[in-house]
């Protein structure tokens, strides 16, 4: 399947949809800092991979796909759930890249420039996620 940029979902979204994700993203970042301060970096670090905005994103995907079908007078319930399920499957593939990001930062950060480590780890997350996504049908 070809990767495409589709701006229609962007135009369908309301400002509240983005505000909710900003709120959850901000809250979990602040809470992760507070947890690390209270319980130390071992516990605090777990929350760097917490699925904070995942419920909001999956709900948004489900809603948009349902509305698309309803616009052409079709029932969109099932399509919405399938799209959200596919989104979650993509996230599980992306978590392989997230794991690589964490390992690289853990190993490289003590001895290298922080910004270089974060940029390299983010690039590896991106490339490994795409590679895993492309290879998913072979598994």
């Amino acid at each position, binding site marked *: 399947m070809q990767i495409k940029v589709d701006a229609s979902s962007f135009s369908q979204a309301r400002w509240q949809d983005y505000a909710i994700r900003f709120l959850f993203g901000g809250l979990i970042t602040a809470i992760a800092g507070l947890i690390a301060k209270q319980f130390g970096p071992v516990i605090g670090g777990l929350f760097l991979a917490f699925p904070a905005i995942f419920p909001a994103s999956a709900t948004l995907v489900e809603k948009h796909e349902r509305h698309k079908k309803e616009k052409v007078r079709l029932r969109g319930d099932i399509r919405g759930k399938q799209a959200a399920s596919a989104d979650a499957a993509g996230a599980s593939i992306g978590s392989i890249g997230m*794991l690589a990001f964490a390992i690289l930062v853990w190993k490289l950060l003590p001895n290298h420039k922080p910004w270089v480590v974060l940029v390299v780890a983010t690039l590896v997350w991106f490339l490994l996620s795409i590679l895993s996504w492309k290879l998913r049908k072979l598994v």
Partner: protein
Amino acid sequence: MTQILIRFLVGGAVVSVFAVIGDLLKPKSFAGLFGAAPSVALATLGLTIVAEGRSYASIEARSMIAGSVAFFAYASVVSLVMMKYKTQALLSTICAIPLWLGIAFGLCHLWFK
């Protein structure tokens, strides 16, 4: 208090950028990759390096490994449950959060005890 506010604003902004990129992409399974973007980690680690130093941030990243494994299990279960039982996204994703917590803390306990 100022540091918490900065964390909130930076975290919200970074997470939003990745979320918007994910919204623009198709197919949805590809867009979902951005649901597992290390957005909270980027915001947190950058600020932690400045405030606490590289060694402290490195320990956080080591724990993130356990969190990532838990995220993999969480997202896989949510996807399977939604596909098989056609449950609502909000219900499925919220109900599966204890799974993430259990795996993340379980691995943390086993690995770092």
